């Protein structure tokens, strides 16, 4: 009975109800359980902290810094990923190189490279950008390569029949035909990159005057501002949801609309 009525409610509302219940339980636990504020903040305290730090700009700056490093790193990683995948498709050496490099680096969490990056680049954004790029390049290269390789033989013949060659073949047919895999690669790259950038900032602290969200959380810990730690986590989670939504939007407008991928 309950399940039946439940499925009739619109999806967004169902999710909102669950979130509301979680928040109420959380608030009740903190208020009624007499939990030390130092250990767990209540949702209301977190909301207050969010409001204050958005108003004074510290959370906004932190978010901007994190996103800036993330985007620069991802763009660099994605470019190299595309280059590697292209080499792999057009030559045997390239294919072997991709196999060897991904075998070596893919199992290596790119955050483990951070100490080395700090020696090479110093305590500067370049170190974070470097590890983010390293987290991004492999999923992009592997998935793009798979995408190119799994283009249907008939689609390729049809393209050759039109006399397409070189760059026009790549941009006109190969890239759109491989788009489902490319988007999968970018999603994986984003997931790795996002975790890496936050982790790097936690370890790393401030690069010059520019600290990101990871630094914001760590900083709040130094001052025992537990509510601010939670506030930072909320922002990180919210941004993640936002980007996932963005990918979903792009997919609906492209590969789902074209029947190349089924709607989730």
């Amino acid at each position: 009975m309950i399940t039946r009525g439940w499925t009739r409610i619109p999806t967004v509302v169902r999710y909102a109800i669950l979130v509301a219940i979680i928040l109420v339980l959380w608030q009740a636990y903190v208020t009624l359980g007499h939990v030390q504020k130092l250990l767990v903040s209540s949702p209301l305290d977190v909301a207050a902290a969010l409001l204050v730090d958005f108003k004074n700009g510290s959370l906004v700056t932190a978010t901007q810094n994190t996103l800036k490093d993330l985007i620069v790193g991802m763009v660099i990683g994605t470019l190299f990923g595309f280059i590697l995948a292209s080499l792999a498709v057009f030559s045997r050496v390239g294919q072997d190189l991709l196999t060897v490099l991904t075998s070596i680096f893919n199992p290596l969490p790119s955050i483990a490279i951070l100490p080395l990056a700090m020696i090479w680049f110093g305590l500067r954004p370049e170190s974070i950008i470097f590890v983010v790029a390293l987290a991004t390049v492999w999923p992009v290269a592997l998935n793009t390569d798979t995408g190119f390789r799994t283009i249907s033989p008939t689609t390729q013949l049809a393209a050759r029949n039109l006399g397409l060659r070189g760059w026009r073949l790549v941009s006109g047919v190969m890239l759109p035909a491989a788009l489902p895999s490319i988007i999968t690669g970018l999603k994986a790259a984003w997931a790795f990159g996002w975790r890496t950038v936050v982790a790097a900032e936690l370890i790393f602290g401030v690069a010059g005057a520019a600290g990101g969200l990871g630094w914001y959380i760590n900083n709040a810990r130094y001052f025992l501002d537990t509510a601010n730690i939670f506030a930072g986590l909320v922002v990180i989670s919210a941004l993640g949801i936002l980007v996932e939504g963005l990918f979903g939007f792009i997919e609906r407008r492209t590969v789902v609309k074209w029947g190349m991928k089924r709607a989730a």
Partner: protein
Amino acid sequence: MRGGETFVIIGPSGCGKTTLLKAIGGFLRPTRGRLLVEGQPAREPGPDRAVVFQDFDQLFAWKTVRDNVVYALRVARNLSVGEARKKTDRMLELVDISRAADRYPHELSGGMKQRAAIARALALEPTMLLMDEPFGALDAITRNQLQIELKGIHERTGVTIVLVTHSIQESIYLGDRVMVMSRFPARVREIVETRDFTDVESSGFAELTGRLRELLVHREEPFDVVETASA
């Protein structure tokens, strides 16, 4: 092959029908011998030998039916957007798919996809239209319908068609001449004139069907000899 005719290649699976068609299309090079298209060796693939394949994914999934044709004209014939659009509309009209012009390939039935592929190929104004079992993946009713329409299109456009099939009925109905190929050894058995036979119900059609079946089923002497020798 003669200009303007429908030349059908028929044979058992694995006899090299499709291989021959791909060689004409320039996708493969002959390992031995020469293959001449208008007196010249078959070169790289090109829009002068437009191909319609059996598989539905010959259409670009990310373009609507109209844009598939427009894109082909833009890249293969260097037409301006305006010219390409005008010509595309005429072609879609010809193969009776105008009402689905703005749909994506995955939204179409198998028959509609093949119509769109034929429209794209014809729009290129090829010297030859190469068709590799174009109706092989369709249900019988759609298949019949498209056979009739292809015949009409051929009469109106006069394009030379090379069609690969393994349907005897289709070969006689559509073909002016039918080349029968055999397997073991893979070679041409006979070229049969079928120009005057289009009435499926007629006795001549039935007779010809029998003859082609005979040619397809019966093995040639050399094969039996080899078998006896090895026994």
